[in-house]
């Protein structure tokens, strides 16, 4: 008989298909979308490419000339003018050079540089630019200052006729050596300018004028050794303050195969709404002149979720009351009293905002492309979490409200996350610049400990607003 029973049950149930709501089951067991750190990497890569492209474009705009920095300069001398007069001009790219023009002061390299006449006399027949030039900011030729203006990309010097002021240039500063391998020789009166030569500015500025019928002997001016402009000194150190607004993405999974997974996840997803994260930080950084920079400081991040729970319970009490009325044919009525049920419905609502607050140490490195007042910063780094605090409630599968802070489920100590971003900056003054950018944070670690009944992790993508101040 046992065999009969076994066979019969086997035959009946072996391939029997029970009715099941497969769609509902699928909705319940549907795996969460796989975390895609690769997507974040792609996003970061796209930001990097965009930033690099912008930087390249900015750099290209800033350097329309070849990277060698060679500028061709024209030097011209016209006969009939005093080549030491104020009419003599040189033009350099946004810079000025000097000339032996008495009684005129013109900026050289954005600052006035002049020459003092050498001891060698300048005559009508043979005017020589002295073999050495002053690097001082003042110059004189025969006790008179001489300068000439400069213009971008061309370097021209006009000598209209013979010098009217005999000048002798001399070095006003012993260190300010301007090589004069070929002292400029101006032709005799009425000499005609035959040729305007080109000179190479960088690394050495040379100009050469050839007069008709004269041996072309003009000085090679070594600009590299000429005085530079006293630029406003900028410290490479800076202080930066940033504020961030992030869109939060939460992953709720089970650390191990547990029946609790769907229950915990369902309970929490049904009662919590993931909101946003805000962050602020202040950092001290070092900006290298080649564009690289690093910064580190102190940051604070707050992640927000909203908790809302509504529960309705009905309690049945037994109280003494009227149970029954009995109507008799003679119109009499009996009232029967006894315990009757009293239903009491209670609706419980709780709404609160949950927050995870953490102090961090951001350490960021990046590269800044600059053109004029605009700059693009590509940045990536790590945020070391120093402390984390939690405040709020969560719903357990048993529909009990649990205070986050009373659990031991979250990591509250040291941790880390990765951050990257791109910032577009604008210098409102030499020291102050504002920046606006995109930022992404990736948390490789769970926020929860392994002992928690669920694994929780947050990823962030958002915008950044910052201000930077270059220290003195």
């Amino acid at each position, binding site marked *: 008989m046992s065999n009969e029973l076994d066979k019969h049950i086997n035959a009946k149930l072996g391939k029997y298909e029970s009715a*099941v709501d497969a769609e509902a089951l699928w909705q319940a067991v549907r795996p969460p979308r796989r975390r895609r750190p690769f997507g974040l990497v792609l996003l970061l890569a796209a930001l990097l490419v965009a930033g690099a492209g912008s930087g390249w474009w900015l750099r290209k705009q800033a350097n329309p000339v070849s990277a060698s920095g060679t500028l061709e300069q024209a030097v011209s001398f016209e006969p009939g003018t005093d080549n030491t007069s104020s009419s003599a001009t040189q033009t350099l790219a946004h810079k000025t050079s000097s000339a032996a023009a008495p009684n005129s002061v013109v900026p050289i390299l954005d600052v006035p540089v002049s020459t003092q006449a050498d001891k060698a006399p300048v005559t009508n027949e043979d005017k020589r630019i002295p073999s050495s030039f002053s690097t001082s900011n003042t110059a004189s030729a025969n006790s008179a200052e001489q300068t000439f203006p400069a213009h971008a990309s061309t370097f021209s010097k006009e000598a209209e006729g013979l010098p009217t002021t005999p000048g002798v240039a001399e070095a006003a500063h012993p260190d300010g050596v301007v090589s004069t391998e070929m002292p400029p020789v101006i032709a005799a009166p009425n000499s005609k300018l035959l040729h305007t030569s080109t000179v190479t500015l960088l690394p050495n500025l040379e100009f050469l004028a050839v007069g008709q019928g004269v041996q072309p002997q003009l000085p090679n001016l070594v600009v590299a050794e000429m005085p530079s402009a006293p630029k406003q000194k900028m410290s490479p150190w800076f202080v930066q303050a940033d504020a961030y607004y992030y869109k939060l993405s939460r992953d709720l999974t089970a650390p191990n195969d547990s029946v609790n997974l769907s229950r915990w996840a369902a309970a929490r997803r049904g009662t919590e709404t993931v909101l946003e994260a805000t962050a602020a930080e202040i950092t001290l950084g070092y900006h290298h002149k080649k564009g690289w920079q690093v910064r580190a400081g102190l940051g604070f991040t707050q992640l927000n979720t909203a908790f809302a729970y509504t529960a309705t319970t009905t309690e049945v009490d037994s109280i003494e009351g009227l149970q029954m009325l009995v109507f008799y044919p003679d119109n009499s009525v009996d009232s029967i009293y006894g315990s009757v049920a009293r239903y009491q419905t209670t609706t419980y609502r709780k709404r609160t905002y949950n927050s995870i607050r953490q102090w961090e140490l951001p350490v960021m490195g990046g590269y800044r492309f600059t053109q004029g007042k605009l700059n693009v910063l590509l940045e990536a780094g790590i945020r070391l979490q120093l402390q984390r605090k939690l405040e709020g409630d969560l719903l357990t599968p048993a529909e009990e409200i649990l205070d986050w802070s009373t659990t031991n489920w979250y990591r509250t100590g040291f941790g880390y996350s990765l951050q990257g971003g791109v910032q577009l900056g604008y210098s409102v003054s030499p020291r102050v610049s504002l920046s606006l950018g995109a930022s992404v944070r990736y948390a490789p670690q769970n926020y929860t400990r392994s002992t928690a009944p669920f694994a929780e992790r947050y990823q962030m993508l958002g915008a950044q607003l910052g201000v930077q101040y270059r220290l003195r």
Partner: protein
Amino acid sequence: MTESEIIRGCQRGKAKYQKELVLRYSPQLMTVARRYCRDDHAARDVLQEAFIKVFRAIDRYEPTGAFPAWLRRIVINAALQTKDKASYQREQTNLDAVAHPLVAPNVLSQMGAEELIALIQQLPDGFRDVFNLYVLEGYSHDEIADMLGIAPGTSRSQLVRARQKLQAMILQREKECYVKRVG
């Protein structure tokens, strides 16, 4: 969509194939889960848990055996994990009162699958699991003993008791049906 396509799709994490797996196999697996649980509600929980495990473990699935059998094994494991192992020992001690009725073959043949499942669900946990594992899954007593953490002798005796209990329940049900028919 073939079985191998579903498996490959699930291994790539494609929702379309995962859904197809659930839709195709959940009716059979629900029967398995119902046999191991006290009621259908518990069976649904077990089935849900089993599919979650399937999606996690399918990367490691090697097509050495039948895929439905692999799925069934996961459902069985999920069902057994919800049980208190000590209950198998406790149930063994209360067997003497079970009678040894006989069920006529014609009575058996009149019973449908749903009725049989309902009867199996009424068995105590230990009886039910041993009966299912031995009669319907084909495990040996040694294997059952390993799976449930009991001695092989306990498995044998629980199988016997489970059969007797089932027969008794079938007779009782037949008796009630007769009374209804006669009036």
